[in-house]
């Protein structure tokens, strides 16, 4: 039972943190932009409102770009919940996208079924590869972090090898596959925008993951193992199996994110590097405090920020590399928990006192 005044303060604290972050960013913008006022407008307002009207197209772009990071955010959420520092999201995303693409190109199927099968395959393979670090961890107690990090590179190079030597469309100058069959393309939720139905799947996935983590015995076990493994073992949970399960689910979510992003946004497979969504997923999960329901919100935050920076570079002449700096600054301040902790404590004390007083009055009343 969170206190009203306290939760109000939490919201207020969030705003102040963002305000400070933006203030610092603004100082940087002042140095760089030709027109700082415009830059700030681009960063804050233009992503949703442009020329006094709702910038619907931009809004859909923001939503569209949330899609892959929602998936990786959820993946990190599940994997980290089991206290496994698994960084394999990157590899799973790329592999999921690649496998989905190969099926989308090479195995003709009916509409609907094709997308389903391709995404399913991407999901499965994404989960499958995560068995490796998970089992090595459970059976051999070897660091899952090392294993997953190294596996990302192995996966990437293997994909590039097959892409280049087996699946490349040699008529193209860029290293890419042949185009996906039409049946395998995830159609747009709103035509003419970047927003595909993948977004909806991401939202559904969020709900499912939230239910899984907080309303099922498996999610519960995973969380307890994450808090205290010895305790979970003693309580009779299948610790090893659950750890593997959590990593596989994380891999599946990442793989699904890769597959959906690939089929929802692109026409051919053209990722030549680890896509980076895995790392963004970590950021998202941390901002969301590992709470699945908060993941889309955190993803929105990042996506909005990205879009704002992009518009700054188009309209206000802020150089692209400033984006990284501004993002770094905003992350640092926004996630600073102890920021204003003194004030928070005062409110807590005040509340506690009021509560005690109330109790005393009540008990006196009762005695009388």
């Amino acid at each position, binding site marked *: 039972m969170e206190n009203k005044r306290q939760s109000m303060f939490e919201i207020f604290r969030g705003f102040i943190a963002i305000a400070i972050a933006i203030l610092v960013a603004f100082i940087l913008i002042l140095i760089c932009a030709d027109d700082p006022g415009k830059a700030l407008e681009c960063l804050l307002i233009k992503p949703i409102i442009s020329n006094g009207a709702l910038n619907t197209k931009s809004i859909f772009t923001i939503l569209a770009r949330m899609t*892959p990071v929602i998936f990786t955010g959820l993946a990190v959420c599940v994997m980290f919940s089991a206290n496994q520092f698994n960084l394999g999201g990157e590899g799973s995303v790329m592999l999921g996208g690649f496998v989905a693409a190969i099926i989308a190109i090479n195995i003709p199927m009916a509409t609907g079924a094709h997308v389903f099968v391709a995404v399913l395959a991407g999901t499965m393979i994404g989960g499958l590869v995560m068995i490796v670090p998970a089992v090595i961890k459970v059976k051999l107690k070897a660091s899952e972090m090392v294993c997953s990090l190294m596996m990302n590179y192995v996966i990437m*190079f293997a994909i590039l090898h097959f892409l280049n030597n087996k699946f490349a469309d040699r008529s*193209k100058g860029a290293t890419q596959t042949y185009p996906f069959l039409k049946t395998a393309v995830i159609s747009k939720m709103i035509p003419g925008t970047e927003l595909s139905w993948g977004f909806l799947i991401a939202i559904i996935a969020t709900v499912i993951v939230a239910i899984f983590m907080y309303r099922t015995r498996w999610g519960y076990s995973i969380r307890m193992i994450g808090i205290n493994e010895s305790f979970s073992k003693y309580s009779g949970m299948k610790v090893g199996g659950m750890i593997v399960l959590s990593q596989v689910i994380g891999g599946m979510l990442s793989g699904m994110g890769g597959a959906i992003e690939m089929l929802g946004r692109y026409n051919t497979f053209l990722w030549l590097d680890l896509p980076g969504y895995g790392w963004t997923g970590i950021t998202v999960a941390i901002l969301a405090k590992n709470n699945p329901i908060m993941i889309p919100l955190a993803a929105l935050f990042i996506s909005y920020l990205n879009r704002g920076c992009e518009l700054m570079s188009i309209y206000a002449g802020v150089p692209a590399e400033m984006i990284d700096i501004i993002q770094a600054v905003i992350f640092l301040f926004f996630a600073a928990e102890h920021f204003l902790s003194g004030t928070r404590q005062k409110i807590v004390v005040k509340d506690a006192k009021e509560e005690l007083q109330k109790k005393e009055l009540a008990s006196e009343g009762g005695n009388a």
Partner: protein
Amino acid sequence: GCGGSKANTDADNGAAADNEKKVYKVCNLVNGTLGDKSFFDSAQAGLEKLKADGRIDFTTIEMGGTTEDQAKWQGYLEEVSASGDYDLIICGTYQMPDYLKNVSEMYPDQKYLIYDDTTHQLPNVANLSYAQNDLGYLVGVYAGAMTTETSVEGMNEDAVVGFVGGVDSPVINDFLYGFILGAQESNPDIKIDTRYVNSYVDPAKAKELAESMINDKKCDIIWGVAGNSGNGAAEAALETGKAFFIGVDSDQELTFSPELAAITLTSGLKNIGNSLIWFFDEWDAGVEHFGQHTLLGMKEGGIGVVTDKNYDSKTPEAVKEKVAAAIEAISSGDVVVPTAIGNQTDDVQQLRESVKP
């Protein structure tokens, strides 16, 4: 301000108005970042020159080159097209055509230019491409002839040269294809050690590769076609003192420190900047290249080889003659170099393996 990428002020407008020429408003979208000392920088330099001459007014936007950035490229194109602020929107590389196709169809009245790509043919898009296979051929002829010129200090008698590529991909292999054929033209028994860094930004790795080429395989000339990574190959040549380097895209002798410049024999040029100037010359003259593929080769000045400085001072006359003859043959069309781009078979790969030392 600090915005290196941005350079539009109204400075020279007056002069242009006098000539009654149109000052084009141009947007240059870079799907990476400037500072590659290669084609993005080259395009930028061309635009700077046009601007200095009062012919255009331009904005450069760096969109970032990572896979995560890739998801934004089409968004940038759309946003810029929708703004309607520009007479011409420029972008480049083989990674952009599909996005450009989508957007150019949405904005049929907007004019676009894409350099270094031949994928699509669209009515409002001008495609400029460069005969890098020809370029590779010329560099190959030169390297193949030089490697046995023991009269040049530091050159050994073994007919072995090296090629450090960025990644194993069609564009890089297009350079390689010409390079191998050219080298074989000079010396049919030549061996070519090809290795890829798998990154355009890891000179350290390139250095290791090049050192192995030099120490293990006796390469004495290495052509680095690997962006920033190429510098590592140059350093390996300098450090071992047993090899020379050849640059790519722009004249790397000019961008290197004196020590590195000293062991750089020449550079194969991909003149993107020049080609943009050429494009505006044509446009002003009433010749529009929209809806066309324009291949810019030796003749059009799209490619070239640096022939002054080290080349001039270090190269024996006989070799110079060979290179000159090759340039002539390419320009006249007597020699036609096959291209790796769009080559549906494994020709390049097979050739590459067959000439390994």
